């Protein structure tokens, strides 16, 4: 029973939710956040972020495809997961997952991307050859109608889909927060703020992710970064981050001030077992430093190169910080005993089904999917989008 201090109920010594369950809200958060960023352009007419609109959608889609995989790997009986669709339990937040996920995947993301790319898909299905042609043909769903009128209808429908998509994105990630926030047995989780904090941290991570991806990919393609676009994204990142941080601090101050029966235990945990991941990684390097960097870019007029570097550093730190936040919620919530009398230790395995390697693989998988999607459906606004495909 190594790694136990004080008293744990005997069944609590093992952690039941591993690093994969950390990954799951992280990935869903990126999906929701990336989509919200895309919706800025579409619904709120923030034209400056247009260069990232399609990239954000494709990013959201590639992460969404991967989102259920950590859960599947985690389940003791993954083959039984269809039961969640066939007999969903109405009182379970987790049962919602299947439906919200499918809704989001099919009715929101896939539909919106399809509408947005339909013109290119039809053109490519006529231009390309071989297997690629078949793929595009299937994607047209057998309709080659890209008349002005049809595209106009697409535009209108797409706007509605995005409008529906925003609450859907909130729902997708808000309910992930609710999965944790509704567990009254666990004082570290049980909080009505949890879904709200999850939504805002999701927006923060998604926006940071698309910003970093856009800068990195543009650099790799040898094109120039649209600074007006990145500046705007950074501004939105800064403001959502402030809301997110305020909410988290509100939660923290509330806990400290109320100091209920669980407080001493949780306080001790934050100062010992969670010190590095919570105080150092999440709050200092994952929140305060990027906030400071972004604040400087907002307040001081800096040259382009300095802004680029600061955005890149702030974005990367934000992504690490939000991951640490998920870690501290999921793992932190299992390190203390529900008797409030002791602590256990999480030992991450390396090569098991729920080990580190699988976690790393699942983190990289969305990027691979994104690479394929970008090849198939080029999101670039600089130069003709169809050109990229033809060149391949």
């Amino acid at each position, binding site marked *: 029973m190594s790694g136990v201090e004080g*008293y*744990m*109920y*005997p*069944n*609590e*010594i*093992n952690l*039941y*939710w591993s690093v994969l369950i950390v990954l799951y809200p992280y990935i869903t958060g990126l999906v929701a956040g990336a989509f919200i960023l895309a919706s800025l352009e579409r619904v709120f007419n923030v034209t400056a972020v247009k260069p990232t609109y399609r990239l954000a959608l494709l990013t959201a889609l590639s992460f969404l495809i991967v989102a259920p995989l950590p*859960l599947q790997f*985690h*389940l*003791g*009986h*993954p*083959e*039984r*997961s269809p*039961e*969640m669709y066939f*007999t*969903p*339990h109405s*009182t*379970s*937040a*987790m*049962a919602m*997952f299947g439906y919200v996920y499918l809704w989001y995947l099919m009715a929101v993301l896939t539909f919106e991307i399809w509408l947005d790319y339909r013109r290119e898909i039809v053109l490519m299905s006529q231009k390309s050859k071989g297997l690629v042609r078949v793929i595009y043909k299937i994607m047209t769903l057998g309709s080659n109608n890209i008349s002005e009128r049809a595209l106009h209808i697409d535009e209108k429908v797409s706007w509605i889909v995005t409008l529906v998509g925003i609450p859907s994105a909130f729902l997708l990630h808000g309910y992930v927060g609710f*999965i944790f926030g*509704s*567990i*009254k*047995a*666990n004082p570290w989780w049980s909080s009505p703020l949890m879904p709200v904090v999850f939504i805002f941290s999701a927006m923060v991570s998604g926006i940071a992710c698309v910003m970093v991806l856009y800068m990195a990919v543009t650099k790799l393609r040898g094109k120039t970064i649209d600074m007006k676009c990145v500046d705007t994204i950074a501004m939105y990142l800064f403001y959502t981050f402030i809301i997110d941080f305020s909410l988290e601090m509100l939660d923290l101050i509330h806990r400290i001030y109320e100091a209920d029966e669980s407080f001493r235990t949780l306080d001790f945990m934050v100062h010992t077992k969670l010190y590095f991941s919570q105080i150092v990684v999440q709050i200092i390097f994952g929140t305060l430093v990027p906030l400071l960097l972004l604040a400087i870019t907002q307040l001081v007029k800096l040259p382009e190169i300095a802004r680029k570097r600061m955005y890149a550093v702030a974005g990367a730190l934000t992504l690490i910080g939000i991951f640490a936040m998920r870690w501290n919620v999921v793992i932190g*919530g*299992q390190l203390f*005993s*529900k*008797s*409030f*009398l002791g602590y256990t230790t999480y030992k991450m395995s390396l090569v*098991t*089904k729920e080990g580190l390697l699988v976690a790393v693989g699942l983190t990289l998988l969305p990027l691979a999917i994104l690479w394929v999607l970008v090849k198939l459906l080029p999101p670039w606004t600089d130069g003709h989008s169809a050109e990229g495909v033809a060149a391949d």
Partner: protein
Amino acid sequence: MKITRRQMLVLLPAAAIAWEHVMAGTPEAAPNYTMSEHWWSMLIDIPKCIGCGNCVRACKEENDVPDGFFRTWVERYHVEDEDMTNPTVISPDGGKEGFPPVEKEDEGKYFFVPKLCNHCADSPCTQVCPVGATFVTPDGVVLVDQKYCLGCAYCVQACPYGCRYIHPQKEVADKCTLCYHRITKGLTTACCEACPTGARQLVDLKNPNDPIHEFLRTHAVQILKPQMATGAKVYYNGLDGSVR
């Protein structure tokens, strides 16, 4: 649990057969038993518990409980005078082999607290199950359908008492069944059968002749973590306020 490809080939047809079984259902196990006539729970009489560990061993044997996990366990509390909020608690191997001698003989008080699933009427664990693989039966027992459970462990997180675990071999949620296979046959639970002092007693609240009714009328009885509002049905007599 690692599954090789070869094992997978063997397991798939086995799973298919198991699923057919799941679909068909099994015949009535106890034909003379009517669920609606019972409402099961348990009484723990703390002043009678001697910490022998008989209940833990009996439970392990009756229910094939895996090593290191417990459907029932016994805790030994040590509460110093005037420090009710900081008890020292131990439960070596769930109290299965009893307890070591006490360290501070003359300081504070010592007592044993047997724990098990509280078979809550408003159970937070069944509430969160995404597929309906755990439930409260019409006779008041919280059970797990191990042929339907996904093994997501959400119920384990939702139990305030730490009574659930994921079975390391079956990879599904596992917990106390209140010896459902015994009580439906007119027997008492294995832990009650093996308890030498009567510190644990199976209770049927719907049975008007059950001595529990007289007991509840004449004793100050408590449940664990009442603030959780779980409708816990395991009643503790003589429970100290320091017990969590």
